[in-house]
């Protein structure tokens, strides 16, 4: 009989995440994938600047804490030094799609053989709830107190859609962990993103449409519902790019 346990690659500590924040679930999924693939000993994680900055304390694999937005460049340096190892970055939307956009796009277009776990919560969580590059039109944040006005603040970035135009990208999928069914799909996607790297296939990104209960000023349940009601339309779930299936259709 299977006993429900904490993945071995997750440390025996309490995380610093807010109650109801999907970071915990996504960490667990990453941990399960690392365990199942048996790669903890040769995995190096790259922590962002953002709520997940202390991910290095929550995983048992080796970790490097990168400057804000630079995780894909740091990951590139590690991967080019240790090509037989597994390197993943774990980043928020400000980190990946604002200050680190260049690093994201160029590691993707180089087809850097790394795995990127992207947690899109449409807000800057760590700094207390400012507008993110992925905040929705009309969304009220600390720095868009009248709602995000696209005439002033522009439009949100759809990361998977944007990256899927790049030839270097092996795999881009957007998932959610708001219910068991979606969490199972998220795990499949994350495992595939790691497997792709092990198979030497190149850049893989999984974007989790997440929620920020504290920064959004909502409770955990209401935050999940807000994510479903508002974010899902702008950020539809699904596979945006998969060279495996593309290659098949081309045959």
């Amino acid at each position, binding site marked *: 009989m299977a006993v429900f346990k904490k993945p071995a690659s997750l440390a025996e500590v309490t995380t610093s995440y807010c109650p109801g924040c999907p970071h915990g679930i996504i960490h667990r999924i990453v941990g399960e994938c690392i365990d199942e693939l048996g790669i903890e000993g040769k995995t190096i994680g790259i922590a962002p600047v953002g709520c997940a900055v202390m991910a290095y304390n929550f995983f048992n*694999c080796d970790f490097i804490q990168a400057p804000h937005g630079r995780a894909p460049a740091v990951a590139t340096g590690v991967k080019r030094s240790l090509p037989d190892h597994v390197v993943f970055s774990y980043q928020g939307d400000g980190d990946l799609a604002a200050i680190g956009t260049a690093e994201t796009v160029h590691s993707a277009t180089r087809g850097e053989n790394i795995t990127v776990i992207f947690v899109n919560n449409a807000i800057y969580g760590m700094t207390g709830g400012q507008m993110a590059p992925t905040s929705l039109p009309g969304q009220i944040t600390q720095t868009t107190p009248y709602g995000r006005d696209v005439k002033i603040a522009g439009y949100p970035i759809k990361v998977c859609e944007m990256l899927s135009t790049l030839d270097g990208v092996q795999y881009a999928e957007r998932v959610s962990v708001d219910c068991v069914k979606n969490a199972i799909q998220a795990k499949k996607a994350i495992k595939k993103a790691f497997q792709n790297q092990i198979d030497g296939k190149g850049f893989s990104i999984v974007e989790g449409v997440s929620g920020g209960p504290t920064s959004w000023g909502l409770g955990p349940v209401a935050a999940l519902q807000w994510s479903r009601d508002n974010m899902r339309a702008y950020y539809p779930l699904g596979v945006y790019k998969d060279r495996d299936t593309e290659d098949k259709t081309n045959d």
Partner: protein
Amino acid sequence: MSDKVLMKGNEALAQAAICAGCRHFFGYPITPQTELAAYMSKTMPKIGGTYLQAESEIAAINMVQGAAAAGVRAMTSSSSPGISLKLEGISYMAGADLPALIINVQRGGPGLGGIQPSQSDYDLATKAPGHGDLHILVFAPSSVQEMVDLVSHAFDSADKYRMPAMILADGLLGQMMEPVVLPEKAKEPSELPKKEWAACGHEGERKHNIVNSLYLQPQELEDVVKARYERYAKIEADEQMCEKYMTEDADFVIVAFGACSRIAKSAINIARKKGIKVGLIRPITLWPFPVDALKEAAKNAKAFLSVEMNMGQMVNDVKLAIECKKPVEFFGHTGGIIPTPAEIVAKIEKMQEEIK
């Protein structure tokens, strides 16, 4: 002994890094360091190394950071405007105790400035190579041969003290061709000391390694920084390097580094013929600054003259080193103009007048 070969400064820097066991270069194009990156792009693929042209200097320094954190010998090169962009990464590396080599083939600033030689990043390199309380090792070669010698020493020192090192060159040295002798035996990466702290996968054999500069508890952060400053103090005591030229009987001591020191030597030879006793202290390490040699020289010298290709930056360190016990003057040009020996002699003659 190895044969002498004629090499451009920039190419010699690159070959010296390869001879020092460096197999990971990350950079972004900029004049006047161009030949360095070009040399790496040609050579690295042939020896199983990595040359990667990054999307920016910010990305390049962070790739260096990743490689350094993974435990390999890594480097980047750039020139002044690009160095501005690298400061974030240098600060993080200093905060995470990571060794790496950064080469700055300086050009004029501020802003886009110019592309001619300059030494105007002296303060940046020695005073504030990034945000926070930190130092990096700074080496100032004055010949192509010394570029070769210092690259290997800089890498070894960076490893020894677990901190970034910078070679502060300039466009003149980078573009100049001189005969050099390369190390007889190049180091293989496998011969370099193993880094127990590296994030290179624990393989189930140890606790996980974390490479990090974040300490949210003020006391913890202060303790970490203070421990690092104890290391810095040891470096200041043990690692000062300088060359002395005709200082024994000198009434006037010129202090100059890099390309400027070569011009200063010509000036000294002219002045000596005129019967003026001038000598030179040439700092080879800019941080740590060769304070001991300057203190010693201050005992007998009448005055000091700092000659720089900037508006007067090192001159303040000279004053501090000799505790203002003797007059310290400055002469220099900026913007890519190189001081001439005649100008320096004229300045010394003026100082002689004033002192009488």
